[in-house]
């Protein structure tokens, strides 16, 4: 049997966790109960509900988890709406992994790392943060800045509070857009918060969130002395094939599915502003 690249595997949902009012995290394994395939942090997979559609999602679980994969999915369109209605035991289809991963084994090694996420933008970063935690001694200090609209919109808050905050040599800063009852933490937008924190500009930074957040946060980082060649982000565009052939996820001469989704800011600078 020849390996057919566009033919998916069958996955089984083994757990559904409601993270926020519009984000659920789905745990998926193969029909044999094992993990469907190996991946690296930042890579994506095409998930589909036959008859509804197929979409690209970042794999939010770490590669170091050898039992299953997780996808944190925000309900925002036709396919994600149906995915949100799925229950444990339901089968879906999955193919991947697609795209380039964060350079965790190359550029990130030995560096102090700054992770900045907004909203559902935490999904791709969770994979790399947990990877770094697993191989903790390979990396320097870790700073995580995570913001959302409200405290209820913070994805994976239990893991953040129970595990990340207790990790050695790790600082976690949370913020929400507006004051809210029951929240005694920081209030304000991520870009402004990042500038207030007195961060060491020699860290390697990874940004993920809505385009507007990325734009202003990047400007803020540059202002406090960060170098663009050490700032990374991930892009998201419409995709159908995942292997650089269907022709729609390009930014200039690069395909996000194949050449991305992880890009260094200096790489993005060379591309037309069309994403």
């Amino acid at each position, binding site marked *: *049997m*020849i*390996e*057919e*690249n*566009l*033919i*998916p595997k*069958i996955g089984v949902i083994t757990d559904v966790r409601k993270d926020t009012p519009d984000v659920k995290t789905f745990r998926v394994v193969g029909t044999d109960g094992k993990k469907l395939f190996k991946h690296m942090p930042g890579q994506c997979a095409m998930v*589909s509900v*036959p*008859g*509804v*559609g*197929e979409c690209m999602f970042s794999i939010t679980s770490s590669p170091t988890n050898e039992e299953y994969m997780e996808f944190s999915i925000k309900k*925002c*369109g*036709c396919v*994600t709406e149906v995915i949100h209605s799925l*229950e444990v*035991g*339901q*089968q*879906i*289809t999955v193919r991947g992994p697609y795209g380039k991963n964060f350079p965790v084994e190359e550029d990130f090694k030995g560096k102090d790392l700054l992770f900045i996420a907004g909203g559902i933008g935490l999904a791709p970063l969770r994979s790399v943060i947990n990877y770094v935690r697993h191989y903790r001694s390979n990396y320097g200090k870790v700073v995580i800045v995570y913001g959302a609209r409200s405290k209820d919109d913070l994805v994976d808050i239990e893991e953040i509070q129970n595990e990340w905050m207790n990790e050695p040599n790790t600082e976690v800063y949370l913020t929400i857009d507006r004051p809210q009852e029951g929240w005694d933490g920081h209030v304000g937008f991520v870009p402004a918060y990042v500038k207030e924190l007195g961060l060491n500009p020699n860290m390697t930074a990874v940004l993920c969130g809505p385009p507007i957040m990325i734009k202003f946060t990047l400007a803020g980082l540059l202002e406090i002395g960060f170098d663009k060649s050490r700032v990374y982000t991930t892009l*998201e*565009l*419409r995709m*159908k*094939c995942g*292997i*650089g*052939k*269907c*022709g*729609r*996820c*390009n*930014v*200039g*001469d690069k395909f996000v599915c194949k050449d991305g989704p992880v890009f260094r800011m200096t790489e993005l600078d*060379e591309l*037309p502003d*069309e*994403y």
Partner: protein
Amino acid sequence: MLKIAKERLNELYAKISESMGLFIPIKKGGEVNYHVWGEGKEVSLETLKTVKSPKNMFFPQTENMMKFKTEGKNIEILEAGIRKQGDELKPFVAFGVKACDYKAIEVLDKVFLAEPVDTFYQARRNATTIVTLACSKPEESCFCGVFGIDATNPQGDVSTWLDEKYLYWQANTEKGETLTSLASELFEKGGETEVEAQKTSTKAVLAQLPFANLDLSRFKPENLNELFDDTRWEEMSEACLGCGTCTFVCPTCQCFDIRDFKTNDGVIRYRCWDSCMYSDFTLMAHGNSRTTQMQRFRQRFMHKLVYYPSQNDGLYSCVGCGRCVNKCPQNLNIVKVIKTLGGKKND
């Protein structure tokens, strides 16, 4: 070199069809396109440009990719891939492919056969023997020479030339030799002089064509951003209706969509040609990266002339077939874009 009398071509087609599929330009409903040959079909090798390019032989306008059966919470994938149950495809011959369209197959190969390989396309490509046909009467809309293509001397598994009396035949590859051997009794030797004479006279015509000297010199990867930001895109794209005709007749356009179709007997996942000219091509639940027709128009031509070459050692993904020149209802085309942005010599 071999030759076969024109009146015996039907015998050749019949012979090939005994063991292989034969796709050849056939007149049907007033249009000439590549169809499967059969007794009584009206073959038209003389037609310079089929309406649609031969790309659908390897990359059909629609094709089923797999079928899903769902029962309760379970899904079963059936009929997955092109080689259902591991069968190999029946070999077929693409007959009468012009030099531009042959070059277009090379352009598509670099997309579909690059890792990770598109196995649907690959299976069809491997099953094909390509018989090219030299052009002897190029038209005003032709500009293959601009892309370094010699319309008088096409490559492929077999190269052929047609005149009033004969089809001249030269096998170039093992596949070509095998095809020749299927019908060796129909061929006689000779034709070198006639073919050389035809090449010379056609070349004289090609040199006179109105678009023969388009300047592409500015379309280089290092000019990507400068070209992208050129203010003339607005003006050039103003009349574009976004109908997508250019992309459908184009021999190198490769964009496709993957969709599901619910039937009484399960869900069929198929792919079909799509067009970067359409507004929902890049539409996502949370936004669209190309919201204006100018952006979509720019995308198409930047892809052909800059993005694709940048990723493929300078090879342009236009072959100068001129189909878009003939078919655009608004008389927009790549020639106008090249003339506007291509370089000083176009002025």
